[in-house]
């Protein structure tokens, strides 16, 4: 992975060093899962459940997304995601809905970048 890629990943909110450490320095394995992230369906599930007012479904999707984002050290995404997960854990759809735009923005930023890298 070249320096330019690292820099742009960092700009998109990825803690590259931490992610690399989690993959035991195995860069290709990390990249494989990073590039697979845009295909992960949890975000669209979350979006659909929020639109349908399904708090339980939204929580399940947000919770799984938090796990995947955490593993990839997608800090930019985790930041708005964590409080949203807690809102949904408490069944507070209205509070979660208020946080959705910020999450959408962070999600778009990282997936756009990853799509370019692929």
């Amino acid at each position, binding site marked *: 992975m070249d320096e330019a890629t690292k820099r742009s990943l960092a700009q998109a909110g990825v803690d590259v060093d931490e992610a690399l*450490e*989690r*993959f035991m320095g195995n860069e290709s394995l990390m990249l494989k*899962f990073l590039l697979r992230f845009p295909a992960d369906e949890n975000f669209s599930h979350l979006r659909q459940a929020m639109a349908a007012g399904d708090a339980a479904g939204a929580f*399940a999707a947000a919770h*799984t997304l938090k*796990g995947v984002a*955490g*593993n990839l050290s997608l800090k930019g995404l985790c930041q708005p995601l964590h409080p949203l997960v807690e809102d949904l854990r408490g069944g507070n759809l209205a509070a979660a809905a208020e946080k959705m735009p910020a999450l959408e923005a962070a999600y778009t930023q990282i997936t756009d970048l990853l799509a370019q890298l692929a």
Partner: protein
Amino acid sequence: MNHSAAKTILIVDDEAINRAILSNIFGPEYEILEAEDGQEGLDRIEEHSDRLSAILLDVVMPHVNGIQVLRRLNQAGLTQSIPVFLITADEASSTMREAYELGVMDVIFKPVVPYMVRRRVNSVVELFQARRRLGAEVERQREELLLQAQQLAEMGMGMVEALSTAIEFRSDESGEHVRRIHDITCLLLRDTPLGEGLTEAQIKLIGIGAITHDVGKISIPDAILNKPGRLTAEEFELMKTHTLRGAELLARIPQMREHAAYQYAYDIALHHHERWDGGGYPHHLVGDAIPIWTQVVSLADVYDALVSKRCYKDALAAETARDMILEGQCGTFNPKLLECFRQVEPRLRQFYNTAQGGQDHG
């Protein structure tokens, strides 16, 4: 001693990325098995339970979740032998409490930090390995101790038998007398209803008591012990004291007194000349006041005396000996004892299949 090749870890997680991360961490040291949900995890565990070093278990999974897997492992007692680690993104305390109660060794939070999860898992795996090795070592030592105890018991038995045989030699009887009384007594107790309610261990102890039945003869002068022909009334009174002297002798040996066979040996030495109708000695006990094992030894003693040559008599044929006993010519015995004796008597002859034809060498 570290059989790293044999170490296997099972990773149960529905997310491919989680399995990949954990597999990448433990791959260099362990053989990795993966399962994509709880049910598949349970299947893998059933197949490989004897070689799993650890199980890394996700909590939230479709179908069968991690806690359900844990409950099943707990029921099967497997959490005792295989360390289970819960890998969870949740810090919900109720889940963690239940997990610990069900026997997980540790809870590790996602996203995992490799050096930490590796250290924590390896420590526990080593602990379990050490515990297993130690358990095997304790088991081996226990077996060794049991063997030594058995050897000691056999040596003790050998001493008792040697002493009893030495005493028998004085009265011109071979050591085989002692052995045969033992064998006849044990056969009657093992193979007839006479031994009902007695365990094999008890019968063995009674066998020891049968061996020492005549130790009191050590106190009887040679002139009486080896007198050919009938004893005078006075001589017979002295001869009868071998029962009392035998019991006294046994009671004076501390090792004997503490031996599990003592209660049998003492009674047999003291009462093996009692008779069912009270016509015996030294206490003229009647009927069941004489313990059944002592009654059996009495009969074995009489039978062996009849079919063996003694200084005061020739050996009799087995049939003659049997009939004399059944007809009451050697004192009255318990009818139940006589019936059992009648049935197995032909088998007792196997103990006399020697070159001497059952006669003592003198």
